[in-house]
């Protein structure tokens, strides 16, 4: 294989890995934008979404791409409960509390999932497994193309929801100015629940895509993607959805490039090295607001 071929391969792998990061980072941005909270346990929603997809698939055998809707709906519910019971009582008591609370959530979700589904590695075979589409000199698995298309569709739907619907406008208003939103009669606590639920649904979609792409999963897969999603939103700017998309793609490519050049063991470390280098140069992130 020539160099260009390898380069394109890495690029495409990065694009595909980036899709999962984009969905996670967009969800986090949505939650951060509205509630200004940081939930390190966001990756656990990806993991739950993955398990819901796999379980429904094993039980019914329907096309796993269709289960994405079910896992998103389920996670809206779980997210609403988590927001109501855990995050709302500590809203405004300090950022550190949110971080510590998410550690508790990580314990509960990871090990709760291990109690239900066991902690061994599992995987699901996609119905389109083995089908490839020739694109130029590359042959790309059909699954990857569907995943990229689905991610784009979800993001467009989210964009339309935020721009066109009343709830979407209320969410944007709350994220711009919480007190102002209250003054014009928006029930910000309702908006909190909806935003958190939507953010979790995006994580669930990422989980479904993780499963159908044939990647193995166990209850502990969530932490790494979540931390990387945080890296992405620090790089791409807090609350900026275009930033999350570009950052997600770059992260996917950088990671796969590093794995190819330095060896697979460096895949996780490289994203933190990028993060640390960026934060040394700009302690508030690449596009972050000045000060806090």
């Amino acid at each position: 294989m020539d160099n260009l071929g390898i380069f394109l391969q890495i690029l495409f792998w990065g694009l595909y890995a980036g899709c999962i990061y984009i969905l996670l980072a967009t969800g986090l941005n949505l939650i951060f934008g509205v509630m200004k909270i940081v939930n390190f346990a966001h990756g656990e929603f990806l993991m739950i979404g993955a398990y819901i997809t796999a379980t429904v698939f094993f039980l019914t055998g329907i096309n796993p791409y269709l289960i994405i809707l079910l896992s998103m709906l389920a996670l809206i519910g779980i997210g609403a409960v988590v927001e109501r019971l855990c995050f709302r009582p500590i809203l405004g008591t300090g950022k550190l509390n949110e971080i510590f609370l998410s550690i508790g959530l990580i314990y509960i979700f990871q090990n709760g999932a291990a109690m239900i589904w066991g902690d061994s590695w599992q995987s699901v075979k996609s119905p389109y497994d083995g089908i490839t589409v020739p694109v130029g000199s590359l042959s790309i698995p059909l699954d990857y193309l569907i995943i990229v298309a689905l991610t784009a569709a979800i993001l467009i739907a989210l964009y339309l929801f935020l721009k066109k619907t009343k709830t979407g406008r209320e969410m944007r208003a709350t994220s711009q100015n919480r007190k102002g939103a209250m003054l014009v009669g928006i029930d910000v606590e309702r908006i909190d629940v909806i935003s958190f639920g939507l953010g979790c649904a995006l994580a669930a979609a990422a989980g479904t895509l993780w499963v159908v792409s044939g990647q193995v999963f166990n209850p502990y897969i969530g932490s790494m993607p979540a931390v990387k999603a945080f890296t992405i939103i620090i790089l791409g700017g807090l609350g900026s959805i275009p930033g999350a998309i570009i950052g997600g793609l770059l992260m996917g490519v950088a990671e796969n490039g590093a794995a190819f050049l330095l060896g697979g063991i460096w895949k996780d470390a490289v994203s933190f090295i990028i993060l640390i280098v960026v934060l040394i140069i700009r302690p508030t992130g690449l596009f972050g607001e000045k000060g806090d």
Partner: protein
Amino acid sequence: MNFGRDELTKYGLVAALAIATALPFLSDNMFLLNLLVLMLISIIFASAWNLLAFTGQGSLGHAAFFGIGAYASTLIAVRSGISPFVTIFLGAAVAAFIGILIGLTCVRLKEWFLAMVTFGFAIIVQTLTVSVLAPVTGGWDGIASPRLVSPSIPGYQFIEYYVVLAITITSLVVIWYIMKSRIGLAFLAIRENELEARAAGVDPIRYRLLAFAMSAYLAGIAGALQIYHIGYLTPDLYGVNNSFWPVTYVILGGLGTIAGPVIGTIVLTVIWEGLKETGLTFGRYVIVGFILILTIIFLPKGLVNLPERVQTWWKERGMEGSGARPQRSIWKFF
């Protein structure tokens, strides 16, 4: 009987010391003694994390310092043949040095930026250990380390227990002394209001760095002690779990207090070992998660604050119905 608060604390301390000294004689159960040693080490580790939290910095990667202390002291001991009693402190010094290097990148960061970067450093250190440094560190397989007290000496567990106990007490006294000194006051000033602290002539960056170094040093001691106790080390030391445990201990006991890490560690260890009897595996972690979340929501100052809370509740009990306190709607879900 009417004790002041200070007197109560004094008697409590004396009682705790007496119990800690006498415990090994109360039972000849070696399993229990082993547990006590590990608990003391956790107390040092949790106190180290708490020392950093004194300055308002919450780290999610303290496993890095724990692991570096363990690896450095073991490698020094193995290569040079120096007694583990000395290398504990040399290894911790290496951890403190790396702590300063990591601190240099972190001291300007706040809250979750800091949490992210410290978390990332633990992973970077682990990656380095198993890749570039593998010829020295043994990679994923790990290496054997010498024991603090050779098992050939009769009653070595007792000696080990008292050594660890002495180091724990010394660490706590040192932390207490630091917190009483100007340095401690500077830490608190930075945590409460950085701008005012700067106006009062406290350089936040310098003191944060100092906190990083001291915290890393103590965490390194804890790591070295644990490895010398177990006799074997693997890169799992850098795992996420090892970073989360001190946080859990401190939050449960009481963030930003000296007694907090001690009480939190003891209570959680008792709960943890008690749950072991019920045969739960993953369930134990779920319960710890619930304990952590409930503590943050309902007892934000930790168990240390419990007596005070009970007292307030006792006093306010008689004043019910006066309508002074607004009722929070707990049951309104959406």
